[in-house]
C-alpha cells in the first residue's frame, strides 16, 4: 500500500493531463464552451436565491445578503457531490484503461475529484463577483484559513471517492443509492439555512456527526461571517481534518485491496 501511494506521486503528470483533458472534453462541442463552468453555478444560485429569499421569505438579518451566504456553502457542496457521483462511476467508464492498459486505477477517481475542484475554483470567481456586487466582503484575517478548508475537503472527498469507486465496481447500485443519499445529505447540512438557528441547535449533536457540516460551516465562517474563525469552528475543522486523513488512508487501503479484482470485474 505505501509503495503504491509513493508511486501515485509519480503519476502527477498523468493526473494533470487527464484533468486537463476532462475539462477540455466536457464542453467541447457546446457553444458557450468553458463559459458553462460559470453559467452552471450562476443559474443554480439564481434559483436557490429566488426560492429561499423571495418565495420562502428567509429574512434572518444575519444571513443577509442571502445569495452570498448561500453561495459560500453551495459551491463546496457542488464540488463534493459532483465529485462523488462522477468518481463512483469512474472505474466502470474507464474500464477500457484498467482492462487493457497497465494503468494505476486510483488515478481515475482522483481525476474526477480534481476536475470538479477546478470548477469549484471557477465558481469562486462568481462568488467574488457577488461579493463586490453586494458590498459584503469577508474578513481578510480569516482568509488564510481558506486553503486549509479546501485541502481538508479535498482529502475527505478523495477518501470517500476511493471507497465508493472501488465498491461500485462490485455493486453497481451504489451509484443510484448515492444520488439519493446526496440529496438527503444536502438538506441535512446547513447550506441553505443558517446553522445558528434555534431549530438546528436542537439537533446539534446530530449535525456534529455530519462531516460536511464542519466544512460548510467553516466556509461560511471564513467567507461570510465577520467573527474571527480562530474563535469559531477552527478546532472542529482540525479534528475533521485528522479524520479526513484517516478516511483517505482507509479508502486507499480498501482500494488497494480490491485493485486486482477491477480488471476482471469492470
Amino acid at each position, binding site marked *: 500500500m505505501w509503495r503504491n501511494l509513493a508511486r501515485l506521486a509519480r503519476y502527477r503528470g*498523468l493526473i494533470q*493531463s487527464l484533468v486537463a*483533458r476532462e475539462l477540455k472534453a466536457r464542453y467541447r*462541442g457546446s457553444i458557450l464552451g468553458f463559459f458553462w463552468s460559470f453559467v452552471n453555478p450562476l443559474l443554480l444560485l439564481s434559483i436557490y436565491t429566488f426560492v429561499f429569499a423571495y418565495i420562502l421569505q428567509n429574512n434572518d438579518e444575519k444571513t443577509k445578503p442571502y445569495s452570498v451566504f448561500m453561495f459560500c456553502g453551495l459551491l463546496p457542496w457542488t464540488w463534493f457531490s459532483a465529485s462523488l457521483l462522477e468518481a463512483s462511476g469512474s472505474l466502470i467508464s474507464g474500464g*477500457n484503461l484498467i482492462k487493457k*492498459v*497497465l494503468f494505476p486505477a486510483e488515478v481515475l477517481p482522483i481525476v474526477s475529484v480534481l476536475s470538479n475542484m477546478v470548477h469549484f475554483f471557477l465558481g469562486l470567481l462568481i462568488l467574488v463577483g457577488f461579493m463586490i456586487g453586494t458590498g459584503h466582503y469577508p474578513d481578510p484575517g480569516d482568509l488564510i484559513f481558506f486553503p486549509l478548508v479546501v485541502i481538508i475537503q479535498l482529502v475527505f472527498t478523495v477518501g470517500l471517492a476511493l471507497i465508493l469507486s472501488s465498491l461500485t465496481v*462490485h455493486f453497481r447500485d451504489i451509484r443510484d*443509492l448515492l444520488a439519493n443519499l446526496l440529496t438527503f445529505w444536502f438538506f441535512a447540512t446547513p447550506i441553505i439555512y443558517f446553522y445558528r438557528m434555534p431549530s438546528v441547535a436542537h439537533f446539534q449533536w446530530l449535525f456534529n456527526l455530519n462531516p460536511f457540516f464542519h466544512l460548510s460551516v467553516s466556509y461560511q465562517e471564513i467567507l461570510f461571517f465577520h467573527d474571527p474563525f480562530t474563535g469559531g469552528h477552527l478546532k472542529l475543522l482540525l479534528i475533521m481534518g485528522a479524520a479526513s486523513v484517516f478516511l483517505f488512508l482507509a479508502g486507499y487501503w480498501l482500494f488497494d485491496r480490491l485493485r486486482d479484482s477491477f480488471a*476482471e470485474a469492470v
Partner: protein
Amino acid sequence: MKPPAIELSHVTKIYRRYGGRHFATLKSALLQRSLMRDLQPRETFQALEDVSFAVTPGSTIGVIGRNGSGKSTALKLVAGITKPTSGTVSVRGRISALIELGAGFHPEISGRENVFINGIMLGLSKREIQKRFDEIVEFAELTEFIDAPVKTYSSGMYMRLGFSVAIHVDPEILLVDEVLAVGDEGFTHKCLDKFAEFKRRGKTILLVTHSLGLVERFCDEAIWLDSGRKRGEGDPKRVVGAYMTDVERQEEQFLASEDAKAQAESGQPVPSVEGPQAAGDAAADMTRATEGRWGSGGVMITDVALMNDQGQTTHVFHTGEPIRIRLRVHAERPVEDFVFGLGLYNAEAVCIYGTNTDIEEFEAASLSGDADVTLEIDALDLVEGTYKLDVAVHTRDGAPYDYHRLLYTFRVKSRLKDVGIYRPRHRWTFAGQVKFKSKI
C-alpha cells in the same frame, strides 16, 4: 548468459467469475451480512495452469494456440495488467503492450491531445512525446487529421494512431496481441517493418498471433499453449508443425463425430424409395443438397472408410495425397443387377466429380453376402476446404438399393491458399528479365 527479459515460472491464473452478482445488490449484501462473502468468487475458470517459460533479451517469441488457450491471458500477465493467482512473473525492461490499440483515447478531443495523453499513460514524458510527435503522426498517416476530434476518425485511423503511439514508446519489450489487422496491406507491411527494426535493435518481442506463417518466418522461438497449458516450445517450424498436426487431429475427431451423427440420423434406408427413380433423375439429384439415406435395402452399404495411402482411416487429407474410399457392402440375397456409384461435392454442394461402375463399363455379374468395393484416387488435387461424399449402390436403371447422400465429410488441407476447387498439377517457369526473391 544474460538474465531473461521475461520469465514466467509456474504461473497459474484463475479467473473468478462473480456469478449471480447482478442480483446480489449492496442492500442484500448488507442485510444478509454477505458483503465479504460476495466479494469471494463463485465460479472459477483456470486460464493458465503451471506455465513456465523464459524469453532471452533480444529474441522474438511467437505464442500460438487455439482460441481460449490462454494466450492473451499470458500476455496480460506479462504486461502486468493482471496478476497471477500463483507463480511469479518477472519482467526486465520497459514494456509497451499493443493489446488494445487506442484504449484511453477520448473521443471528444483532438488526435494531437490524445497522442500526448496516451503517451503519458504509456510512460513517456511530455518532452519525449514532443520529440517524437511528428514521427508518430506520420507513421499513422494522419497528418491531415491530427487536429480533428478522435470521434470523427474511422476505426482504422483510430487503431493506426493507437498503434503508432504504442510503438513509439520505444520499449525494450514489445507485447503484441493480434493487432496486425489494423490497416490496409500497406500499413500491415509498415508494422512488420517496424517489428523487424525492433528486432534488429535487439528488442524483445512477444507476439500472440493466429498467423502461423508469421511465426514461422519472423520468430526465433514459438510457444504453444493449449487449454492453459504449455504444449510445446522451441523452434518455430517444429512447434507450428506440431500445432498444425494437433489441429488436424481435432478436426479429424470433429468430422468423425459429425459423420457418425449424420449417419445415425439418417438411419436405415427407407424401403419405399423417395430418391432417384430413374437414371435421368439421378443427374438432377446430384445437385440436390439434402443429406440422407434411402433405398430398397436389397444391398446395404454397411461401412464407408476414407483412408490415406498407409491404409489408415482419416478425415483429413493433404492436397495431392492419394485417397482410398472403401465401401463395405452386404447383399441379403444374391443380386445380378447392381452398380456402385460415388459422387464428390464441395461444401456448397457443387458436384466436383461423379462416377459409377456402369459409366465406367463394368458389367455386373453377381453380388452376394459381404463384399468390399474400393475406389482409389491417386492424387486428391483439390484446394483446401471441406468436401462431402455420396456413395450408392443401385440397379442399372437407377433404382437405389442403398443411397447415402452427403453423409461423409472430409477435409483437404493445403499450405497454399490458392482458390477454387480443383488444383491442377502445375509449375511456373520464368525466362528473361524476371527475378524473384528466394521463397520463404
